[in-house]
């Protein structure tokens, strides 16, 4: 019976016109804009605490206050309850990532609206808080929310940073992530990363009959949405740099082909019209081009095509498998994978395909290279016994392992290049999950997803 249904499926796929095939669910709503308020910053004090110790900072994050508790589409209980929720999001961002030692709003007294800009220093000093994050939320007549965020140094009795944003009620979590980013950036000196999204593949079902659906979520797992229904296998998604599109592989017409899905319209189109199978789609940093890999008579090479369609340019032409690809942040070079030397290794070339040379010369195989958005590292999967996430310098030197498990693969970078996300497969069961780890190899943790998860792709910081 299994053989039979398999046969029928293949036959159906062979005859179904691609235009008829459909695997898309309801389109997610388009993004609202987040407007940053121009606020006078009070005189900033000098340098914060010794930088090596910032991760041990105890930070108090009480509920955000509201000027008056009114109805809002963002929370059924009004803006006061929403203020507490916002503080919880900030707290979870900082806590879950192993950054600082935050204490959340459920364990702290609630400051009044007037105290947001004039903290009760003695209250927080007595709680041994070194840092204090306070904020407010107001609902405007048009329903939009104004969220203010303040970072204070309790020991200095001084303000370190402040910012404010105006968001649609549905985007209230983004204001919370912006606040967490403000604090993280001010205290660590690093670029922000919380206000960003992840595309990945949700997996359900037994190992020999997995359902694989394209899904998206915020960096903290909230606002989770399935894009495809699971009727056909979806793999290897990538967010466009402006978050308006996703490119991914689908078997919707029975063959592995890559598509661009438009989040605003819910429509999708083939990346390139070809009878050949296409794999491993990647965006250029400016979003103007898509790299893809195509097999012709069994030989896979890397091509580049304008994201709006048009003529493809072949970038590699060696016998063997050339696949994947990741642009340097300035778009001038592409790091990719090739087995032209006999086994999977990492190579680099100029963006026009010239100057191809091998980068990885350590033992074992090296696969799935991803250039850090900062440009200073390349993350990849090292295969030598276990499959481990590793990083190296862009010249192929100084390999450092970040993980050690049976099968970790497919690294993707946080927008600030400080955290690497990947997926881990369990030996035997084949269960999969998303994990992330700091560039230092610490703070390894599993991300909560509604089902098993693979092929993560972390997008840039949201505008």
């Amino acid at each position: 019976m299994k053989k039979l249904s398999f046969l029928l499926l293949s036959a159906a796929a062979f005859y179904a016109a691609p235009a008829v095939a459909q695997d898309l669910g309801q389109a997610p709503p388009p993004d609202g804009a987040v407007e940053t308020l121009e606020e006078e910053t009070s005189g900033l004090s000098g340098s914060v605490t010794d930088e090596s110790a910032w991760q041990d900072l105890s930070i108090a994050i009480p509920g955000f206050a509201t000027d008056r508790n009114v109805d809002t589409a963002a929370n059924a209980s009004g803006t006061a309850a929403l203020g507490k929720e916002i503080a919880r999001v900030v707290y979870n961002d900082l806590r879950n990532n192993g950054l600082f030692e935050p204490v959340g709003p459920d364990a702290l007294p609630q400051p009044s609206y007037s105290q947001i800009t004039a903290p009760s220093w003695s209250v927080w000093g007595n709680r041994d808080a070194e840092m204090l994050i306070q904020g407010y939320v107001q609902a405007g007549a048009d329903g939009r929310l104004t969220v203010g965020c303040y970072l204070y140094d309790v020991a200095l009795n001084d303000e370190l940073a402040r910012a404010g944003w105006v968001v649609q009620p549905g985007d209230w979590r983004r204001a919370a992530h912006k606040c967490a980013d403000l604090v993280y950036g001010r205290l660590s000196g690093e670029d922000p990363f919380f206000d960003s999204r992840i595309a990945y593949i949700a997996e359900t079902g037994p190992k020999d009959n997995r359902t694989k659906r394209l899904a998206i979520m915020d960096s903290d797992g909230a606002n989770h949405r399935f894009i495809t229904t699971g009727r056909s296998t979806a793999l290897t998604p990538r967010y466009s740099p402006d978050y308006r599109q996703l490119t991914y592989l689908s078997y919707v017409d029975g063959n592995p082909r890559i598509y661009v899905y438009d989040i605003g319209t819910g429509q999708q189109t083939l990346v390139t019209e070809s009878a050949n199978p296409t794999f491993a789609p990647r965006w250029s940093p400016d979003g103007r081009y898509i790299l893809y890999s195509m097999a012709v008579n069994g030989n896979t090479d890397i091509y580049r095509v304008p994201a709006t369609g048009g003529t493809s340019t072949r970038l590699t032409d060696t016998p063997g498998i050339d696949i994947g690809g990741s642009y340097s942040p300035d778009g001038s070079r592409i790091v990719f994978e090739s087995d032209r030397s006999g086994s999977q290794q990492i190579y680099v070339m100029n963006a026009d395909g010239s100057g191809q040379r091998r980068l990885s010369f350590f033992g074992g195989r090296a696969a799935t290279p991803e250039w850090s958005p900062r440009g200073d590292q390349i993350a990849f999967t090292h295969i030598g016994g276990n499959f481990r996430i590793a990083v190296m310098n862009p010249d192929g030197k100084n390999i450092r392992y970040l993980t050690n498990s049976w099968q970790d693969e497919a690294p993707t970078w946080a927008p600030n290049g400080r955290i690497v996300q990947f997926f881990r497969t369990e030996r035997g069961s084949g269960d999969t999950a998303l994990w992330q780890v700091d560039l230092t190899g610490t703070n390894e943790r599993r991300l909560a997803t509604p089902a098993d998860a693979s092929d993560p792709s972390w997008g840039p910081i949201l505008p």
Partner: protein
Amino acid sequence: MNTRFAIVALTASALALGACKKEPPESLPPQPLPTNASNTPVTDPNAGMSGPGTQTHFEQMVNGQNVIFFDTDRYNIDSADAAALQTQARYLAQYPNVTVTVEGHADERGTRDYNLALGERRANSAKNYLVSLGVPATRVRTVSYGKERPVALGSNEQAWAQNRRAVTVVVN
């Protein structure tokens, strides 16, 4: 008609005996057809399930050799694979209306993108060998499933050997 079937089946068995390099799948080849099966009238409503041009018929006639196996990261056609593909080619010569898809697969111990390309390479190896035996290229299409569709569920050498395969499937 019966005699020709018997000859094909015999040749297939002889070739299968000669093939020994790689571990065959654990499952046994299907039982041979009862002698009266081919006499089933075409008007029989069930004939479509097992008559010429069906997957069941194909697998029976090639004596289960519709699957070939590969070593880790390899895609070459060895003697066992060649014997199986010769059997498949004879079937396709005998039934010129049959079209097939060769499905290429990889084991789980590879990265996703590479395994898709590797499965495609394996499927093409099988296809090219069939074409070299005289099967028109238009009757053989390929599809790669990478590591997405394992048949053996373990995480061990034996399971991986069964999953590194190219499966020939009848399309019409």
